[in-house]
């Protein structure tokens, strides 16, 4: 919205930045706005429309579940898709198992290494207990 300012130029600043409380022009605008009354009526079923839109917003939360459900119904039972899905989870399971085992293996190795060092070096055992 463009408003002509006191200095005469057309600027693209928002109206609240262009208005000045001391401007007599703004006082006039305020006066006009204060006397403004509308006689227009709301369109038919306006309230129903508002409520319908609110309901649609609420329903959109379940749209993802509905899509998933539809996909399960139509795509997943197809042999190729099902095979891909099972294979993917098989690979994911293998990767996850190996990754977890790697971490555990490191932990056990570190623990046993420390136990050996402490068994042969009493100073290490004392330092560890302190």
């Amino acid at each position, binding site marked *: 919205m463009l408003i002509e300012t006191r200095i005469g130029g057309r600027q693209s600043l928002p109206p609240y930045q262009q208005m000045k409380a001391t401007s007599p022009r703004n006082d006039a605008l305020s006066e006009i706005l204060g006397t403004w009354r509308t006689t227009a009526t709301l369109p038919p079923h306006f309230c129903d429309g508002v409520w319908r839109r609110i309901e649609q917003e609420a329903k959109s939360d379940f749209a993802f579940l509905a899509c998933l*459900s539809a*996909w*399960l*119904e*139509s*795509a*997943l*039972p197809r042999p190729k898709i*099902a095979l891909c*899905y*099972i294979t*993917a*989870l*098989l690979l*994911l*399971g*293998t990767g*996850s*198992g*190996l990754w*977890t*085992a*790697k971490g*555990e*293996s490191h932990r*056990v*190795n570190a623990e*046993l*290494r420390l*136990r*050996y*060092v402490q*068994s*042969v*070096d*009493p*100073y*290490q055992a004392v330092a560890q207990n302190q």
Partner: protein
Amino acid sequence: MKRGALILLLGLLVGTITSYVIYRVSIASQHAMLHEASPELAWLKAEFNLTDAEFDRISKLHSAYLSECHKRCQTIETQNKKLQQLLATNTTVTPEIAILLAERSTTRADCEAAMLKHFLDVSHAMPPAQGERYLSWVEEQTFLRGEGMEKRHHQ
């Protein structure tokens, strides 16, 4: 929907079971080590690829060393107690305290020498390459790296 849901659940089940089985199989040898009579020696065997014969020899060396090490630790403990008693009744370094400190240092030096000898014996009981690796590793991990009070004073 039922068929799709069944496949979905089947996939998740297959993934979970695969993950668990792979984990158990991969970690089996490590967990078996933990349940051995001497887990730390079992680790040594696995880490330095020792044969059964080498492992037996090293296990014997380890047992013999530990028994002597225990005796030396007891001696140091006795000396520590005696020193604490002397320090409780004296406010100066008496000749008796000085002698005891010297004796304790000698016992500690004996302890360190025995430890070093044990490391060398163990490394000799291993194949040459593994023996060298063991020695350099043990030097890093034990008193041999010399990170005692000297290092603290340099900080």
